[in-house]
C-alpha cells in the first residue's frame, strides 16, 4: 500500500472505533451495483522499478541541439532557480488561502506581480494564468468586458499571432458570440499589413491584438498599432515575450498611453521546455481595469499589529465568490512556475535579462547572416527581427528538418501547415545558449544538405 501509513493494528483500532467490521462497510451507502471490479491496470511498481522504467523512457527522448522557438525557448536556467523552487514548502503547499500560514508563497507572488508590472510597464499583474495561449483568450474576454465604448464584440487578430494561440482563442471564446477577424500580414515585411487595418478604421472594434515579437520573429510597429486602437476605441492587447521586454519598448509605453492589457507566456523566464508544459501565462493591465482581471491577485496589507503582510485580495472577481459571474473560471493556476520565474528574474536582474535578450538577438543575426551566405537560402521577411527569423531553401522544409535531425539538430519549425503561402519556410530561433560554433555548425549542415540535395 504505497503512501498509506496504516498498520494492521491501526486499522483494527480505527474500525473498532467506528464499530464497523471492515472498510468495505464505509462504502455501504454506495449502491452495490455501481462498484467496479478490479481495475485493469499494470501491477504496482516499487520506486526502484519505476525509476528504471522512467530513466529508460527519458533515454528514448533524443537530445537534439535546439534551434526551435515558436513559443517555447531554451534559455539557461540558473541552478538556484529550481533548487529553491523545489523546496517542499513551496512545492507541497496549496493556494495560499490561509494567509498567515502562507506568507512565503504570498510574498513571492507579490514580488512576481511587481516584477511583471515593471517589465511590462503596466500598473498591475495577476498571479498567473495557465499559459500564453490561454492568457490571450482571457485577455480577449477581458477586453470585451472592459470596453464599455464598444458593442461589437469584434476582435482584430493578426495572422502574425502564433497560430497555436489563435486556435486556443477560437476554442475558448468560441461560445461567447465574439467575432475574431483576421488581419493579414505584409508578405514583404512580415508585419501586420497597415492597409488591412485601415479598412476597420471608424468601425466598432472591441480589441486589437498586437504581438511583439510576432510569430515570424518580426517586430511589429507597436506604436502605430496602439495609436490606431486608441483612436478607434479598441482595447489594445499586447501579446509579448517577457524576455524580449528587457530590450524592447514595454507595452505600457506603446503609442500615446500604452497598451491596455499585456499578456503572454512566461516560459522564457526560467521554465524548462519540458515537452510543452507546465509553463505559465501572465496578464497585466491598467489599475482602472483591475476588477476585470481574471486570476489570483496578492495584495500587501498589515496585520493586527500593523506589521506588513500579504494576502489574496479582490477575490470578488473570482469563481469561488462570484461563481457564474466571475471574471474567469480559473482556480488552480501555475503558482510553482511563477515562483521559479520570480527567482529567475531576481537572479538575472534588469541587466542580466537585457544581456540574455541581446545575446539571443545577436546570435540570431549571426545565424541569419551565415545562412543567407549559403547559396539558395533566403530570408523570407525584411522586417527587423528579434531572436527568431524565417528562411527558405530550394529543398522541402521537411527534408531539411529531417536532415538536420539526423545530424543532431532540431532545425526549427516548419511553417507550411499554418502558412502554406510561404512555401518551404522554416522558423528558426537562436537563444543565448547557442555558441558561435553551434551556429556555424547549423549553417554548415544546411549548406551540406543543399549541396547533396
Amino acid at each position, binding site marked *: 500500500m504505497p*503512501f*498509506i501509513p496504516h498498520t494492521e493494528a491501526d486499522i483494527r483500532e480505527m474500525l473498532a472505533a467506528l464499530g464497523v467490521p471492515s*472498510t468495505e462497510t464505509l462504502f455501504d451507502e454506495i449502491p452495490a451495483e*455501481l462498484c467496479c471490479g*478490479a*481495475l*485493469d*491496470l499494470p501491477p*504496482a*511498481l*516499487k520506486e526502484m522499478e519505476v525509476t528504471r*522504467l*522512467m530513466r529508460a523512457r*527519458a533515454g528514448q*527522448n533524443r*537530445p537534439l541541439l535546439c534551434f526551435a522557438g515558436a513559443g*517555447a525557448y531554451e534559455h539557461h536556467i540558473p541552478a538556484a532557480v529550481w533548487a*529553491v523552487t523545489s523546496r*517542499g514548502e513551496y*512545492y507541497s*503547499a*496549496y*493556494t495560499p*488561502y*490561509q494567509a498567515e*500560514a502562507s*506568507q*512565503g508563497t504570498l510574498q513571492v507572488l*507579490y514580488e512576481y506581480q*511587481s516584477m511583471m*508590472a515593471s517589465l511590462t510597464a503596466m500598473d498591475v499583474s495577476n498571479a*498567473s494564468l495557465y499559459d*500564453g495561449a*490561454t492568457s490571450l483568450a482571457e485577455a480577449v*474576454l477581458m477586453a470585451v468586458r472592459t470596453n464599455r465604448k464598444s458593442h461589437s464584440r469584434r476582435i482584430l487578430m493578426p495572422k502574425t499571432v502564433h497560430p497555436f*494561440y489563435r486556435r486556443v482563442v477560437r476554442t475558448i471564446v468560441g461560445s461567447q458570440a465574439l467575432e475574431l477577424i483576421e488581419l493579414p500580414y505584409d508578405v514583404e515585411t512580415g508585419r501586420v499589413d497597415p492597409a488591412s487595418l485601415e479598412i476597420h478604421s471608424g468601425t466598432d472594434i472591441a480589441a486589437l491584438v498586437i504581438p511583439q515579437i510576432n510569430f515570424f520573429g518580426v517586430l511589429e510597429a507597436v506604436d502605430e498599432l496602439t495609436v490606431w486602437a486608441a483612436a478607434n476605441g479598441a482595447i489594445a492587447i499586447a501579446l509579448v515575450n517577457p524576455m524580449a521586454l528587457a530590450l524592447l*519598448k514595454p507595452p505600457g509605453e506603446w503609442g500615446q498611453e500604452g497598451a491596455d492589457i499585456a499578456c503572454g*507566456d512566461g516560459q522564457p523566464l526560467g521554465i524548462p521546455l*519540458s*515537452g*510543452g*508544459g507546465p509553463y505559465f501565462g501572465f496578464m497585466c493591465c491598467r489599475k482602472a481595469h483591475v476588477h476585470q482581471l481574471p486570476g489570483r*491577485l496578492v*495584495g500587501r*496589507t*498589515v496585520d493586527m499589529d500593523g506589521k506588513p503582510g500579504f*494576502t489574496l485580495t479582490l477575490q*470578488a472577481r473570482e*469563481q*469561488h465568490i*462570484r461563481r*457564474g459571474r466571475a471574471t474567469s473560471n480559473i482556480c488552480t493556476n*501555475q503558482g*510553482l*512556475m511563477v515562483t521559479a520565474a520570480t527567482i529567475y528574474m531576481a*537572479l538575472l536582474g*534588469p*541587466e542580466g535579462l*537585457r544581456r540574455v535578450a541581446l545575446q539571443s538577438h*545577436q546570435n540570431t543575426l549571426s545565424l541569419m547572416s551565415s545562412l543567407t551566405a549559403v547559396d539558395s537560402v533566403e530570408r523570407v521577411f525584411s522586417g527587423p527581427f528579434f531572436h527568431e527569423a524565417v528562411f527558405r531553401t530550394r529543398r522541402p522544409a521537411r527534408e531539411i528538418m529531417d536532415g538536420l535531425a539526423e545530424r543532431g539538430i532540431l532545425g526549427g519549425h516548419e511553417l507550411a501547415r499554418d502558412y502554406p503561402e510561404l512555401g518551404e519556410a522554416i522558423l528558426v530561433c537562436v537563444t543565448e545558449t547557442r555558441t558561435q560554433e553551434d551556429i556555424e555548425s547549423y549553417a554548415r549542415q544546411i549548406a551540406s544538405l543543399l549541396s547533396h540535395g
Partner: protein
Amino acid sequence: MLIFDRSRRGRAAHAQLLPESGESPAIPDYLLRKTRPALPEVSELDAVRHYTRLSQQNYSIDTQFYPLGSCTMKYNPKVCHDLASLPGFLNTHPLGLERTGQGTLAGLYELQEMLAEITGMAGVSLACAAGAQGEFAGVAMIRAYHRLRDDLARTEMLVPDAAHGTNPASASMGGFRVREVATDADGNVDLTALELAVGPQTAGIMLTNPSTLGVFDQHIRAIADIVHRAGGLLYYDGANLNAIAGKVRPGDMGFDVIHLNLHKTFSTPHGGGGPGAGPVGVGDKLLPFLPLPVIVKDGSRYRMLTETERPHSIGHLVTFAGNVGVLLRAYVYIRMLGHEGLERVAEFSTLNANYLLKKLVEAGFEPAFPQRRAAHEFIITLKRLAKEHHVTALDFAKRLLDYGVHAPTVYFPLLIPECFLIEPTETESKEALDAFVRIMAEILKEAETDPDRLKSAPHSLPVRRLDEVRAARHPDLAYKSE
C-alpha cells in the same frame, strides 16, 4: 523584507550575467526600451537566502498536517518530481515531441489509457491545465454535441447549489445559463427540484460525487436517468475522485464526461497554486469532441492526432500538449500504485475521514450530516460557537495555525453555516488524526473559556491576523520604488 529592499544598483549574480557584447541591436531605436525595468539587483546568495527563508514561512504537506477539504492535500512523492525532472524529459522542445520525444509520448499515451480505465470512460485527453479548464472542455463538448445534433435550444446547465465555484463559472464561460439545483436534507441532490428543473432547455448537469458536502449521492442513477431522459448530459467533476478511486467509476454511474484533478487524486504537487492538470474523459457519445492533442500509437511510434483527423474536436485548450511535467508525475504515481494501490486510496481516505469525524463528534463537534457516512471528507459546523461565544469558523481556523496544523477549508460549501470541510487523506497516520482531535478539543475549550485567544489568533506565526478589508479597499498589488 522584499527582494526589492535588498536591491542595490549595479549588484548582480555574476555567474548568470553574460558579458556585455558592446554591439547594439539591429532594431530600430523607436522599438527599444529606454528605461530599465525595476527588477531587483541582487547577488546569487541574496536571492537564495531570501527565497529560502521565505519558503520557511509556508505551511505545506512536507511540514504540516493539511486537512484542507476538497483539495486532497496528500503526500506528493519525491520520486515523481525526480523522474519528471530527468534531463531527457525537461529538455524536449514541444515542437520536437513526435520527432525526439517518443519517451515522453509513451508515458502520456499510457496515462490516457490508465485514466480511461480508472474512470470507466471511452477516451481521455490530457490537454487541460487544471480542473477548471477540464470543466470548460467538458462543457464545450456538451455544447458541441447538442450543436452537431442541431439541438440548439439547450442553453441551460444545471449545477447543484453545493457545487464548487468553478462549475458555474465554467458553464458561463462555455456559453450556458446556470440554473442551481437544491440539496436535500441528506446532502443529496433534491430529486423533486431536479425533476422540476430539467427540460428541453437542459444541456446537462455538473455534479461532484461524492459531493463537496462529503457525502455520496446514492441516487446518482436516478439523477442520470432524469437528466438523460430530458436529453441532457452528465458532467462529473472529478475533484473528489480520491473518495472512490478503484471502487466506483464515473462511467459506470452514468456520466458522459468527466475531468480529473491530477493535482488532487494523483498526488501531483499543488505548488502553492498550481500547476495542475485536468484531463478529461468521455463516453462514446462525446469521443469525437475530445480536445486535442490526443495521443495515439501507430505501430511502435506515438503521435498526436490532428484537427483533420478529429474534425469535431472542440479544438486546443493550451498552446502545446498540456502540462506534460505534471502528467508524467501522475503517470509515475499511478504506476507505483497499480490497481492494488489505487483501490486502497479510496478505502483509506474514507477510513481516515470517518474515523476523524467520529473522534471529533466524540470531542463535541457537530457534524453537518450526522446521519450520513463521510466520504473522504466531511463537514462540521461551528454555528453553536458562533452563536454562544461569537467565535467564528475563521477564528477557529486561525487558532489551529498556532498549533502547527493547517486549517481545513472554511465557509465552503456555502450552504452550511460556519463550516469546516475536513479532508485528512489516506497518507496521514492515525497518530496525526489523533493529534488533530486533541488540538481541536483544546481549542474548543479555549473558545468557551477564552474566546479572545481565538479572535486574535494566530499568535505564533510570522504575521498576526491580516487586514483583508484594507487589502481590498486600498489595493497594493505591486511594489513601487520611491
